[in-house]
């Protein structure tokens, strides 16, 4: 078994997938807790569809995909934040409109330009999708997300738990909400190559939901979900390689299994 594992990770594409995947799942899990608790679970889903649209346009225009998609998705995250804040539309409706529109525009751009990209890999992810450049950019983004999260951790907690109290005591909630949005957008774009537009949001949501079944504090939930996320990613990646199924789908199924186990443990603990 050990020999087989060494053989698997002797492929450069597997090494790239492992490095990027671990970093992305770590970042996703850190941000996920705040998103779940702020009732923004679907934001990842919405933004990943925007990412899909942006990648399609980048492919048609022949420009660097990540360099184009990151700013577009960040802008959409701000737009969502603005719409919800102004109370013009519920957050769920805004996300639904944005995600289906972006998906539709992406499809039309691809059709008009007769660009053929592997839609399957964009929707469900592919471990072959990462180039050397992608890896460098992903690593830089992930490190920035992690460091920012650690520095802002207590303020993110305060803003997530009680926005009115936080702003009454002088914490600039708008600034920290924007930070959460930008970081989320970056993680989505970086992660969706590997996980696919349809599955990246589960990487943000599942680990937090799982650890919330059993952990009591915000810190323990955050740490626990980071660990769950990395473990699920690694085992999903290896498992999907051996039984030859799409990587993203494999990782989601592992996350689902962990969630069910934690839910059960949580129920037992309650008694």
């Amino acid at each position, binding site marked *: 078994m050990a020999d087989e594992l060494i053989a698997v990770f002797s492929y450069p594409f597997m090494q790239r997938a492992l490095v990027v995947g671990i970093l992305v799942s770590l970042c996703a899990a850190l941000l996920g807790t705040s998103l779940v608790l702020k009732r923004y679970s679907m934001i990842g889903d919405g933004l990943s569809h925007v990412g899909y649209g942006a990648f399609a346009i980048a492919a048609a225009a022949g420009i660097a995909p990540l360099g184009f998609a990151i700013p577009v998705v960040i802008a959409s995250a701000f737009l969502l934040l603005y719409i919800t804040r102004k109370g013009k539309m519920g957050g769920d409706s805004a996300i639904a409109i944005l995600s289906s529109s972006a998906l539709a525009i992406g499809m039309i751009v691809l059709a008009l330009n007769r660009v053929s990209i592997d839609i399957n890999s964009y929707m469900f992810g592919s471990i072959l999708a990462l180039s050397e450049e992608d890896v460098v950019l992903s690593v830089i983004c992930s490190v920035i997300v992690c460091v920012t999260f650690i520095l802002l951790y207590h303020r993110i907690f305060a803003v997530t738990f009680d926005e009115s109290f936080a702003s009454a005591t*002088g914490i600039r909630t708008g600034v920290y909400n924007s930070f959460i949005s930008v970081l989320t957008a970056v993680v989505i774009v970086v992660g969706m190559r590997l996980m696919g537009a349809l599955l990246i949001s589960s990487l943000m949501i599942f680990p937090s939901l799982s650890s919330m079944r059993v952990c009591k*504090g915000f810190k323990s939930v955050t740490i626990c979900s980071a660990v769950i996320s990395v473990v699920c990613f690694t085992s999903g990646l290896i498992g999907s390689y051996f039984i030859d199924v799409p990587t993203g789908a494999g990782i989601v199924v592992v996350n689902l299994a962990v969630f069910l186990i934690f839910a059960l443990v949580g129920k037992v603990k309650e008694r």
Partner: protein
Amino acid sequence: MKLIECKDLCMKYEGVPAFENLSFSIDEGDFLCIVGENGSGKSTLVKGILGLKKYSSGSIEFGGVKPKEIGYLPQQTAAQKDFPATVREVVLSGCLNRNALFPFYTKENKARAKREIERMKIESIADKSYRDLSGGQQQRVLLARALCATEKLLLLDEPVSGLDPIVTSEMYEVIHELNHSGVTVIMVTHDIHNAVHYGSKILNMSKNDYFFGTSDEYITTESFRLMSRGCFHGEGGCFTHGR
């Protein structure tokens, strides 16, 4: 010493005037209860005092207390019901306004949180999860958090709504004690009888008019009779005044 003085204050709610020309002041050591029917602008006023909402005219002046040094106890939100956070984490978050941009909690912060936890008598549940606590315990936790943010002035927005009668009177005792130990209290409430019982001053807001004065003055007014209707007319034991 006057902590807050509002003069001819006008505020709008969604473009419509919520109240106009409101003047009142809070002295150090006061226990001010803000009462009034729904839609009379109580919550808008609270936001104005906290600086979360701009007022259209008039003035709010602070003396001896900074706007960011008000210990605020907001109404609970739905998201908090299943929020995984220990009591300690919640209380500590009240110290954040002391740290400027320093990202972590200092030793003083932790000592302060510990002190407020002891003051609110919640040491035994300090490591429990906020979501597993009863309504009364949760309010004590939020009070401890508010006390971390201030020494001088608490602003409580309907602190007893949804609590059962026994816990409600416990809560009033806690607030009364805090007030006794020198903390100035502003409380928004619908509970008119406890407002005049515990409060030293009353601000009664209504659509076109307002009353501001001591609670002894207030109980002689028509608006008090209106607000306490149904309970005051000789139904013995329903209302007692005096401490």
